[in-house]
């Protein structure tokens, strides 16, 4: 059932609305039902989640008898952004994922953030699907703040995703959707995968299978589990290496995504098209899993080229 969870007047004619698709059990006894919210499109230039929402809604449409809980799908949290390739909240040029929990009386992005929180509040689980940005391509991964690791890592494992990254808490991330929802008691996972402005079909298919598996395991749907790939997990012992460009130029990668790299292996080159010269050759600093690779070729000094998880641990 399509429901509108937020509506506000814009200056000229239009109204800004947030919509969700709610799936409930056919037999309407709501008592004790678990509820999950699938959220995406907080960053308007991240489209990977659109395909995941489609695949989930399609399965749920086709299998109404297998639904045992409530599944809410929110494909576009920043509707003007999604429909205009705008990452931030249009006009205000702020990152919607930095104004949570929002407020009904603050500026428009905060009102939207508040509308999202009020709609999702009360869910047992939430999954916030991001697609990196236009610069980087990410292996499908769940990112978890260290302080929530004990609670969220077991849940993330149920999705069977390629990589779980437990990172240190950063003060500015306290204004994100996931931090707010975790504080309010909704177990919220942040998924990053693929690249901005694109859809990577295989990633979308894998993640939607993974989310259906997870929903089966927590009793929201009834479906046999499908096999999933292996999950790498960054722990306190393993180390994530950041490789930044030492110079300005054009990055030409040598490796495809999702590969195990060896120490000293060539990741790519920074070239100068005017001079016809290779300015720098980038080598892997360790053996590990290449989970982030530069997608947008033009780089400055400092532009992130790759992230590698050292000491791959298989679980």
């Amino acid at each position, binding site marked *: 059932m399509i429901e509108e969870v937020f509506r*506000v*007047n*814009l*200056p*000229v*004619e239009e109204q800004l609305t947030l919509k969700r698709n709610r799936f409930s059990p056919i037999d309407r006894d709501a008592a004790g039902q678990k509820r999950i919210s699938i959220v995406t499109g907080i960053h308007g230039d991240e489209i990977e989640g659109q395909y995941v929402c489609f695949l989930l809604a399609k399965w749920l449409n086709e299998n109404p008898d297998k639904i045992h809980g409530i599944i809410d799908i929110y494909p576009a949290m920043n509707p003007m952004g999604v429909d205009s390739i705008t*990452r*931030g909240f249009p*006009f*205000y*040029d702020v990152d919607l994922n930095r104004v949570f929990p929002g407020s*009904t*009386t*603050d*500026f*428009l992005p905060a*009102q939207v953030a508040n509308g999202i929180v009020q709609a999702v509040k009360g869910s047992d689980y939430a999954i916030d699907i991001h697609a990196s*940005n236009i*610069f980087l391509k990410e292996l499908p991964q769940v990112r978890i703040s260290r302080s929530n690791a004990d609670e969220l890592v077991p849940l993330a494992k149920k999705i069977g995703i390629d990589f779980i990254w437990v990172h240190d808490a950063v*003060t*500015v991330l*306290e*204004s994100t959707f996931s931090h707010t929802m975790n504080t309010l008691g909704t177990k919220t996972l942040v998924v990053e995968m693929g690249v901005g402005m694109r859809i990577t079909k295989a990633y979308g298919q894998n993640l939607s299978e993974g989310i259906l598996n997870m929903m089966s395991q927590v009793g929201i749907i009834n479906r046999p589990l499908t096999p999933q790939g292996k999950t790498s997990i960054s722990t306190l012992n393993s180390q994530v290496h*950041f490789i*930044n460009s030492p*110079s*300005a*130029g*054009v990055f030409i990668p040598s490796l495809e995504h999702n590969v195990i790299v060896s120490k000293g292996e060539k990741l790519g080159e920074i070239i*100068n098209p*005017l001079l016809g010269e290779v300015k720098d050759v980038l080598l892997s600093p360790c053996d590990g899993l290449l989970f982030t690779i530069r997608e947008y070729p*033009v*780089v*400055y*000094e*400092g*532009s*992130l080229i790759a992230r590698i998880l050292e000491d791959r641990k298989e679980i």
Partner: protein
Amino acid sequence: MKEEILFEIASLSREPLRVKGFRFGQKDSTPSCVIVGPIAGNGINQLWIASRLVNFLRQKELENPSLFKGEILIIPTVNPYSFNMSKAFWPMDNTDIDVMFPGYEQGETTQRIAARLFEKTNNFDYALLLEARKDHSECIPYVKVLDTGDDSAEEARDFGLDFIHSRKPTTHDTVSLSYNWKIWNAKSFTLVSGKKGSLDKGDSRKVFDAIIRFLCKKEIINLPIFECSKGNIITNENIEVIKSGTAGLFDSLVPVGEHVIHGQPIARVYHSLDGSLLQTIIAPCDGIISCRYDYPLIFQNAIAFRIIRLESKI
């Protein structure tokens, strides 16, 4: 005066980003003051103020170098790239350099710019930042002081501007330049004025004069000055925030800096298609309009005005 390139960042097809400094007085003489111009590429008023300061001090130094007792470093802007494209933030990824401090030399490009700027500016006695308001508003010239428990707000009276806004730092402030200067023991002040992307020479002149006055009071330079306002130290408690109750065409009836009285109409909001009057915004108190929304289309609940309340002291 010594003109120097403080640091550069290379680019693929453009000339390198060059950050220039203009140094006056003897290097390492005290007291010392660094003045950093706009970090965002739309602070035209601030660029104007910084460049007028360079021009004025150069002339004074040529006339009489002994007027300079301490050292002054002026960095008119760290962001020529954004200025030249009429953008606020870093052209490549739209990141705000003023959320990258104290910076990280091994990190992303804007973290490196922040690290290099910070390294060149963190050892002065006084550190001034010129800033346009980051939200959609224009404002009167004022001094912004982050209240970390020291006496900076009192000291800000030496600028002679009418208002000193003192507020507690938020989590967002912890990554700003002015906050990090404070952490590194500089006395740090932010001079806020005007409207993004435009030039108001009158208000800019007030900020210019305030900085010269401050440099004289701190005995960094020795020039004749006029005395000015003693300054009113205000906090968020003294500020009335007035929001638009509706979205539409915004017609302000008062300029910033205007004295208004309780009940006075200060703006009207009209339906943008049929022209009907949707709301008359009324001043809820006596006071001075310190900030006004800067765009003719307004959103519901957008902050239309801030008024510094005129309160009777008991």
